[in-house]
């Protein structure tokens, strides 16, 4: 089964790195979808089938926290797993995002294996052994 993955980050370089890690992990990806902030992400979510959202927190226009709330409060989107990928490693922030409905939290800098394991935990399956 191929998964559609939405990567939400205001850094195009970070979106490229996440795509690369997903590729190396061997996840069967149907489509990579990208957004630079929460507003753009919601447009994608209302127009495309998405199996997993990977989102940063600090972004212009609409941050990852607001995006998470929008997703969890929309019956059409509420069941999509959300993995937060953020530079903010403060314990308060991690607890807050999980309490708001995030399914996982990976802090930057991350090891490729850590991101891969979290993705497989949320999507099902086993990480590529090269990790």
């Amino acid at each position, binding site marked *: 089964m191929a998964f559609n993955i939405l990567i939400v980050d*205001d*850094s*195009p*370089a*970070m979106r*490229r*790195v996440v795509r*690369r890690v997903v590729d190396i992990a061997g996840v069967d990806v149907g489509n990579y979808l990208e957004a630079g902030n929460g507003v753009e992400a919601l447009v994608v979510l209302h127009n495309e089938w998405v199996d997993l959202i990977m989102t940063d927190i*600090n972004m*212009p226009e609409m941050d990852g926290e607001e995006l998470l709330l929008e997703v969890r409060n929309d019956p059409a989107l509420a069941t999509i797993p959300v993995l937060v990928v*953020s*530079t*903010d*490693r*403060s*314990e*308060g*922030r991690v607890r*807050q995002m999980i309490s708001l409905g995030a399914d996982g939290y990976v*802090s*930057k*800098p*991350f*090891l490729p294996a850590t991101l891969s394991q979290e993705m497989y935990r949320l999507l099902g399956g086993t990480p590529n052994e090269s990790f």
Partner: protein
Amino acid sequence: MKASEFSGLIPECCSEVLDAMYFTTVLDSQLKESMPAEPAEADFLSFHLRFVGHISGRFGLHLSQGTARSLAANFLGEEETDISSADAGEVAGELTNMLCGSVMSRVEGEDRFVLSHPEPGNLVVRAGLDDALISRLDTDNGVLTVWVVVDGEPCRL
């Protein structure tokens, strides 16, 4: 908290970030009194951002185009010859964000903080004039200058 209290954290956090995502080792670190005087500004990249939390201030990174290109190649998993100036700039901006996030996560602990988007441009920082700390990091991909300026008034979110 004074900027001088970041002196141990900066090399430690930079090592962690550079090692994990840029496959680069910090070989040495030194505190400096002022930013390096560069012969040609066009050959260098500078980014800075604002952090707001229990402690607020500005954080910046200064590095040569060559170092930025080399780090970008490592970060993106591409050949250095395939890295454009735009790639090097994007990656240097993201590095600024990650370095500051790593430092602030250690400083804030339980507390939340917000980082602004990294902006290009060199700010004049002098350790003797501002509550600032300037750190030179020698890595196996070149030299990075990292600075932090702490605001006078602490700000709570």
